[in-house]
C-alpha cells in the first residue's frame, strides 16, 4: 500500500500536478509516524502509511492552501469530513488540494497494546486482521479489533466525502458501525453527583498542554480565546482562572455543530482523557433535537447553531426528559 502511494505521489510531483505532498513520515519509533511535508521525490523515501497513521491531515491544509501551487494530501475516510467542514468554513481552498482518498482498517492504538501486556515494544507488524508485536518482554499477537482506537469502534464508514482519486485499498462500501453514543448514554444514566465525580476524575488529570486544541481541525481560529495576549511572546500561561477551569467545556461548545467526531482530541491526549465524549454529547443532542446532522458530510448546509426553526424545542426539554 505504502509503495503504491509513494509511486503515485512521485508521478504527481513529476508531472507538475502538485508541488508538495502532505503525508506521514516514519517517526523515531515504529508506532509513532508523524505528519510531514515532502517537497522532493527523494524525500518521499521516508513516507509511511500504516495503521499508526491516525493523524488527520486536514488541518495542515489551512496553511498549505495559502501557498503557491497545489498540495497532494492523503485523507482517510473520516479525515475527509474534517476537510469538507473546513471548505465549508472557507478555511481551506478546495482548488489548492489534490486529494487521494486512502482506505483505513481502523487506526491502531499503542496504549491499548501496552495495556494488554506488550512491554518494551520494538517492532509492530500488521497482517490483515492480526497485529504482531515484537517486544523485549515477550512477543504478542493481537486481533486488530482489540487494539484499535476507541473512535474507530464507532467508525463512520469507508466512504470518502471528498477526493480527486481513490487509492486501491479504499473501500467505499465499508458500512458505518453502531454504538457511537453508547459511552455517552452510560454517563447520562448516572445521577448528577456521579457524573460530576466522573468528569472531575477525568478533567483533573488535564495538564493544559493544549494538544487537543492544536490538533482539532475545527479549532482553526486565527485568534483563539485561550491564547494569552498579555505578553508579546507566544506561551501557554493561562489568561485567567476562568479559561483554565472551564477550558474543556468552552472548547467543546466552540466546536459544537462543527465537530465531525474525528476523535483526534482523545488520540493526542497524553493523559487519556476521553474528550470526544464531550463533543459526542453535543452531536447526540443536535441529532435528537434538530434532526440528524453530520458536520462535514456536505459543504453547503447550515450548521445547527447558525440556524433555527420557529418550532425548535424549548430549553426546558433538558428537565423534562429527566
Amino acid at each position, binding site marked *: 500500500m505504502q509503495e503504491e502511494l509513494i509511486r503515485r505521489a512521485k508521478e504527481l510531483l513529476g508531472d507538475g500536478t502538485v508541488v508538495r505532498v502532505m503525508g506521514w513520515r516514519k517517526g523515531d519509533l515504529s508506532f509513532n509516524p508523524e505528519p510531514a511535508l515532502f517537497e522532493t521525490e527523494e524525500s518521499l523515501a521516508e513516507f509511511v502509511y500504516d495503521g499508526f497513521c491516525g493523524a488527520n491531515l486536514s488541518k495542515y491544509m489551512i496553511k498549505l492552501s495559502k501557498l503557491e501551487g497545489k498540495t497532494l494530501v492523503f485523507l482517510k475516510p473520516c479525515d475527509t469530513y474534517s476537510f469538507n467542514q473546513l471548505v465549508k468554513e472557507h478555511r481551506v481552498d478546495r482548488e489548492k488540494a489534490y486529494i487521494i482518498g486512502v482506505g483505513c482498517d481502523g487506526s491502531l492504538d499503542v496504549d491499548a497494546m501496552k495495556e494488554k501486556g506488550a512491554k518494551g515494544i520494538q517492532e509492530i507488524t500488521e497482517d490483515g486482521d492480526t497485529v504482531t508485536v515484537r517486544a523485549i518482554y515477550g512477543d504478542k499477537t493481537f486481533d486488530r479489533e482489540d487494539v484499535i482506537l476507541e473512535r474507530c469502534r464507532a467508525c463512520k464508514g469507508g466512504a470518502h466525502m471528498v477526493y480527486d482519486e481513490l487509492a486501491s485499498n479504499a473501500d467505499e462500501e465499508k458500512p458505518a458501525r453502531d454504538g457511537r453514543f453508547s459511552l455517552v448514554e452510560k*454517563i*447520562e444514566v448516572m445521577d*448528577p*453527583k*456521579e*457524573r*460530576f*465525580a*466522573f*468528569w*472531575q*476524575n477525568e*478533567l*483533573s*488529570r*488535564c495538564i493544559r498542554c493544549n494538544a487537543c486544541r492544536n490538533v482539532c481541525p475545527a479549532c482553526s481560529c486565527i485568534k483563539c480565546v485561550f491564547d494569552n495576549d498579555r505578553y508579546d511572546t507566544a506561551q501557554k500561561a493561562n489568561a485567567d*482562572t*476562568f479559561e*483554565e*477551569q*472551564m*477550558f*474543556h*467545556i*468552552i472548547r*467543546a*461548545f466552540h466546536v*459544537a455543530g462543527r465537530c465531525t467526531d474525528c476523535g483526534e482530541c482523545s488520540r493526542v491526549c497524553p493523559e487519556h482523557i476521553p474528550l470526544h465524549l*464531550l463533543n459526542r*454529547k*453535543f452531536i447526540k*443532542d*443536535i441529532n435528537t*433535537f*434538530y434532526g440528524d446532522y453530520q458536520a462535514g458530510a456536505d459543504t453547503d448546509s447550515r450548521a*445547527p*447553531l*447558525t*440556524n*433555527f*426553526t*420557529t418550532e*425548535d*424545542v*424549548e*430549553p*426546558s*426539554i*433538558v*428537565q423534562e426528559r429527566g
Partner: protein
Amino acid sequence: MSIEAKNENKEFKPLIVAFCCNWCSYAGADLAGSSRLAYPADVKIIRVPCSCRVNPLFILRAFQKGADGVILCGCHPGDCHYSTGNYYARRRMTLLFSMLDYLGVENGRTRVEWVSAAEGVKFSQTMNEFVEKIYSLGENVRLEDLRCKKN
C-alpha cells in the same frame, strides 16, 4: 476550624443570576416592581440587549463565580426586538444546559423563560418558582472544581 463550623450553621442563601432582555423581561421586572409584586432578593438581574447577547460563557462564568442557579429571560419566540435573536439563544441554551447536566450540574439549576414587558405577574411567579426550586436543590456543585482532584 472555626470558619468551617460557622459556614455549616449558616442558613443557605442561594445566589441566582437572571439575565434579562432589555426589551421585554427587564421591563417585565420593572412592571413587577411597580405593581408591588414580590420576588426574592436572591435573584440578581443582569440587563442584556437581547437574550441572544448571552454568550454561553456568561452562564459558565456565573457558575464559576458560585451561582446556584442561572435563569435567562427573553422575548417570546417571534417577538424578538431584533427579529430572530431569541431563536438562536434557544438553540444555544438548550445545548449548553444539556451539557451542564451531563457534567453534573442538576438540570433544575438552569432555565429559560420567555417573559414579555406586559407580564409582570409572570416575571414574579417565575422568579418565585425558580428560587423555590433552587432552595430545594440546595447548594450547587462548584463547577470550578471540575479541574481539581478530590483528596
